[in-house]
């Protein structure tokens, strides 16, 4: 089983590289830039402990010091090194966003599959609840859940996760409905396959690429939501470093003339989301192209 997955991944890698080479020059630039930005930031988060000169929690004497050689991005109002905070904040923000996406993907796609495949009463019940959730913008929903659950890292992941479930639900459900109509589904039924086999072997694998595309859009949404909650003071709390939470305290000292505690977290959010968007736009364009023109 795992050997098959490995082989499948290799095939995907080869296919992706081939599509990349086939796509237009402008698109290649798009994908490359996006990829560089995203990877750079992920590395920053992954190796946060190695690159940070200080601990993000270490209070210092030098409060609100502008960028110097000692503190390359300055210090915040508690004397903490902004660069170290950003590096660790990256790790936390990305991990929380990733957990949120995992929650929403599994639950949303799971419910969507059950709804689409079995239809009938189950579909109506689940569908109505989802429709209710779907009417709210993601950030509002995350806010509401967050208020109910309280602040903190885990709760933020859950809140944002729940807020993203409806989009996965909708997409999976309509995908399952259309895949159900495909000829090979009827053919598999004719050889005697049961529902479980059908879902695992045929329906879900055909959803994967669309779900991957959806995920690329939702990751940006998740990151912004986590940061947004932090900014509102509802999500991840001090002293844990997090882009949004740090943006919040940064804003408070902006009037005093300190631009660096807010600029850099904000910049990172912007760059990450930009990178994700460029990458997903580029990758989507790569895979949609049929016969290319040189």
């Amino acid at each position: 089983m795992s050997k098959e997955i490995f082989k499948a991944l290799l095939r995907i890698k080869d296919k992706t590289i081939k599509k990349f080479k086939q796509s237009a020059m402008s698109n290649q630039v798009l994908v490359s830039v996006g990829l560089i930005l995203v990877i750079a930031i992920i590395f920053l988060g992954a190796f946060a402990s190695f690159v940070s000169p200080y601990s993000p929690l270490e209070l210092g004497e030098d409060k609100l010091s502008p960028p110097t050689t000692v503190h390359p991005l300055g210090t915040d109002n508690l004397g903490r090194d902004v660069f170290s905070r950003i590096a660790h904040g990256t790790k936390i923000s990305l991990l929380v966003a990733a957990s949120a996406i995992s929650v929403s993907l599994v639950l949303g796609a799971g419910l969507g599959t059950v709804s689409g495949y079995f239809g009938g009463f189950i579909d109506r019940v689940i569908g109505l609840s989802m429709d209710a959730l779907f009417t709210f913008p993601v950030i509002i929903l995350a806010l509401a859940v967050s208020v109910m659950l309280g602040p903190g890292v885990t709760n933020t992941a859950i809140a944002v996760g729940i807020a993203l479930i409806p989009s996965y639900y909708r997409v999976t459900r309509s995908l399952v409905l259309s895949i159900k109509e495909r000829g090979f589904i009827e053919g598999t039924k004719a050889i005697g396959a049961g529902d479980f086999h059908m879902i695992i072997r045929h329906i879900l694998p055909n959803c994967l690429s669309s779900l991957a595309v959806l995920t690329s859009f939702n990751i940006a949404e998740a990151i912004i939501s986590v940061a947004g909650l932090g900014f509102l003071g509802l999500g991840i709390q001090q002293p844990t470093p997090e882009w949004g939470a740090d943006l919040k305290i940064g804003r408070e000292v902006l009037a005093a003339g300190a631009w660096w505690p807010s600029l850099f977290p904000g910049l990172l959010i912007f760059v990450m989301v930009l990178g994700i968007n460029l990458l997903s736009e580029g990758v989507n364009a790569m895979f949609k192209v049929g016969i290319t023109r040189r």
Partner: protein
Amino acid sequence: MTEGSIMSVRGLKKWFPVRKGIARLLSRRQEYVRAVDGISFDVKKEEVFGLVGESGCGKTTTGRLITRLIEPTDGKVYFESQDLLSLKKAELKKIRRKVQMIFQDPYEYLSPRMTIFDIINEPLVVHKITKSKVEEEKLVAEALESVNLDPNEKMYKRPHELSGGERQRVAIARSLILRPTFVVADEPVSMLDVSVRSGILNLMLDLKENYNLTYIFVTHDISVSRYMCDRMAVMYLGQIVEEGPTEDIINKSLHPYTQALIAVVPTIDTTEKRYIKAIKGQVPNPINPPPGCRFHPRCPNTMEICRKEEPKFIEVKSGHYAACHQYK
């Protein structure tokens, strides 16, 4: 069950409820599309039995009812003395090893993401027949050879790398790997190129001999039906209007609809430059079939009784049945 028959169908019906538009919500009567409206026939062991008719006559639906891909509204289907329609899930799964189906569209029927090996192997997996990869490969290779495809070449290709004819062969291999005794073939060559059709048709005939198969062959093409079938039933608007040995139906047809169908088929024989004879009118709406004999609005020989009473399906000559008031 009749003597010598492997399958008996009695009074099979499938009525599809019509979805109501807003205007129709006001009327309380539920309307139905009478796709299959009470058909009965027997299929003898190891014969090829044809179901012929225009699109919309119910022949494809009949095929799916027999294999229980859709559930009938009424009627009975007996296979080897078992009542197919009353089987529960587990028993139905066992029966699927004996009753298989070949579909029309070789492009849609094969999952594009699977290799040929996976596709043909899947029935073995579903029914947990093999115990090792080696055994699976052996059976799949045999299946490919039986449909004249080279396993070494094709085993690990994907459907899009194969031609239409090759794909249909793969579909046939997949249907036969469980060693069924009864196969419903739904327009198996209609979507294939003309020069490829004969290969598939001949293959199906050879497989029938080698594996002692019984076929129900569903098609709109009466020439193909003549080539393949021992006996045929002609369907119109959900009912069987004529049934009998193939040569009788072609050369001595009884029902006016069958006669029209045969007359309208274009042929290559240019020594007889026949002008295309057309039959008037359209197939009526299956929601509200005409009263009496359903064919009467288009029939050249309509009598008074045809408008009022539905004709009975009777044996006009030995083994040759028709539902028409001309015959008593």
